[in-house]
């Protein structure tokens, strides 16, 4: 074990799904917009016009990547904001046409929480379609959830925790079919939104091929800057804004544009798409090797999520008898940055809703670890990580009084945990959506 006093241990960063470091290329693209071009794009004077030109250029670059028109791109402050805008914006604008929304149970909280909000406070009804045991949603189940009063369907492109890639094209096709059969024009609800933040570095972002009406992207997962995102909104679709003010972004997102951030984001999108095929094939090999090594070297470890329809950089396993946060901290001490779905590591003290959605018991969520690779990840780093992980698991199992048999079914009895009923997240369960 790397000694805590050892300050200069090599760091192995395996948390790229949380955020990526920025590349020099992106930084260079941004640098221009702090000093030379620093006007307010809304101003009429020279500085303003130059800023406006720069903004338009970034918009064109982003549009080209996703095969849309520049005016269909709306820059925001984050992926979260884009998700919120898509969901709240569509739902509220179309509330006279219907109050029903559809999503899945493994969406990011940036999607699930606005859904909950609409259901709790604004009289919307939501259908949360459960994914299958492999973490993929059945397009047929999405179709079955659509009602005449449905205005929005939101399904993520790729999952942030287990990396499963959802059949977006197929869902879009079924929605179109439903609309045709129900005499709904393309400019009428229901609309289809996808959160593609995790997908951007590895999958095709062509909105025409995907068939989506709205799509969320952000900079911080693709080696771009943090604090910038975009929402693609197909021409002719209206949304109610969630931020009001100076009317920037055609009134949909007020606030002076983050010029440097947007320029960096456009650059990052271009680079991501340029390298996505070569990076994908490199990382798929590494990912499969990573999984194989974990399963081989650590008993009672289980893969979470489908192996085939999965982001090339995502490894997620549940290791029984140990708790994720403890493992995370031991790994961190050895220089490895990973993440966990354990309740102990979340601000709400709830285990990962994604791992639970796979139909796995709580202890699989508590013992889940996610490693997400990136550009700089090497095979040597994976070897070091597996070796370290095996040692950490051995140590924590020594500390742990548990010896769960994988086939054993453990349920939370009615009186445990500081002697009050079920775990606190269970109590909340009934309430949500």
């Amino acid at each position, binding site marked *: 074990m790397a000694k805590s006093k050892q300050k200069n241990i090599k760091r192995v960063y395996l*948390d790229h799904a949380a955020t990526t470091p920025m590349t020099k290329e992106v930084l260079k693209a941004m640098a221009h917009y702090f000093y030379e071009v620093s006007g307010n794009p809304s101003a009429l004077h020279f500085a303003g016009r130059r800023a406006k030109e720069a903004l338009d250029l970034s918009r064109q670059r982003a549009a080209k990547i996703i095969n849309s028109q520049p005016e269909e791109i709306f820059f925001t402050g984050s992926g979260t904001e884009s998700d919120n805008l898509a969901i709240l914006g569509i739902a509220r604008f179309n509330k006279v046409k219907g109050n029903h929304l559809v999503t899945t149970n493994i969406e990011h909280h940036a999607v699930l929480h606005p859904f909950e909000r609409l259901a709790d406070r604004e009289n919307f009804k939501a259908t949360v379609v459960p994914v299958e045991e492999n973490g993929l949603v059945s397009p047929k189940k999405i179709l079955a959830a659509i009602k005449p009063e449905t205005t929005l369907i939101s399904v993520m492109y790729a999952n942030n925790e287990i990396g499963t890639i959802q059949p977006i094209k197929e869902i879009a096709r079924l929605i179109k079919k439903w609309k045709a059969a129900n005499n709904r024009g393309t400019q009428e609800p229901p609309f289809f939104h996808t959160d593609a933040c995790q997908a951007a570095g590895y999958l095709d972002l062509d909105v025409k091929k995907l068939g989506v009406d709205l799509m969320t992207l952000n900079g911080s997962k693709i080696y771009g800057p943090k604090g910038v995102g975009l929402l693609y909104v197909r021409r002719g679709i209206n949304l109610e804004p969630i931020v009001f003010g100076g009317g920037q972004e055609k009134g949909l997102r007020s606030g002076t544009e983050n010029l440097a951030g947007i320029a960096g984001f456009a650059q990052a999108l271009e680079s991501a798409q340029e390298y996505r095929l070569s990076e994908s094939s490199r990382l798929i090999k590494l990912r499969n090797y990573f999984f194989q090594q974990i399963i081989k070297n650590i008993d009672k470890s289980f893969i979470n999520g489908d192996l085939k329809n999965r982001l090339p950089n995502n490894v997620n396993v549940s290791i029984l*008898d140990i708790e994720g946060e403890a493992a995370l901290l031991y790994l961190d001490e050895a220089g490895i940055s990973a993440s966990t779905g354990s309740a102990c590591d979340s*601000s709400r*003290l709830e285990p990962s809703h994604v791992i639970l959605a796979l139909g796995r018991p709580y202890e699989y969520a508590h013992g889940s670890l996610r490693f997400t690779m990136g550009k700089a990840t090497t095979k040597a780093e994976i070897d070091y990580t597996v070796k370290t992980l095996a040692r950490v698991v051995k140590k924590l199992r020594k*500390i742990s009084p548990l010896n769960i048999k994988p086939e054993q079914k453990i349920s939370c009895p009615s009186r*445990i945990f500081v002697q009050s009923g079920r*775990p606190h997240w269970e109590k909340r369960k009934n309430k949500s959506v």
Partner: protein
Amino acid sequence: MKKIKKKINLKSDVMNQATGQSWIYSGIVKDHFFNPRNLLLKDPRAGEFDAVGEVGNPACGDVMKMWVKVDKKNDRITDLKWRTFGCGSAIAATSMFSEMIKEGRGMKIDQALKIRPQDIIARLGGLPERKIHCSVLADKAFRKAMNDYFRSSGQPQRIIVESGRVIDKRLNITDKDIEEAVLEGARNLADVQKKLKVGVGDKEAIPEIEQLIRFYVEKYYG
């Protein structure tokens, strides 16, 4: 200044994602987490310990088990070993608890039973607020072990019975539920209602619930 720093620490995250260096766990927590004291390494032989107690559940993310040896003549704890399934603070809290018990000639049982969660937290140099329930389990596991000892040594009168008192009859919510809600960060009626849906069932219970919230907030954070 010191106070401000402590306040910030409580609210920040487990570790700095960017550097991976800074911890909100104190140096003492870190030390006990990486070098746990009094850990039970080998499964015990029959009769090696006088009592055993376990609390928690793997589904809930924390399990603590304690093995205790008692000097019957002097009513003192002579040895305490443990195993814990849980996060960093759960492991550190059990380790610290075992040290507190074994200090000097070993604590008197009555004295040991008086150790409160906040005593463990203080010795650990503080814990993040949302991690406080982890240390609450250490004293519970010990109490359970002691009840086991009292039972087997023919002192049933010393057994500590803990049962929740029902506050909201319609939703069957006890004072323990409210205690747990406070430990999870609830500070007022709205927070507790959000966590437990309390008061929705029985409006008449609200004044008593508010009183209990004040009591537990004072108890753990006052």
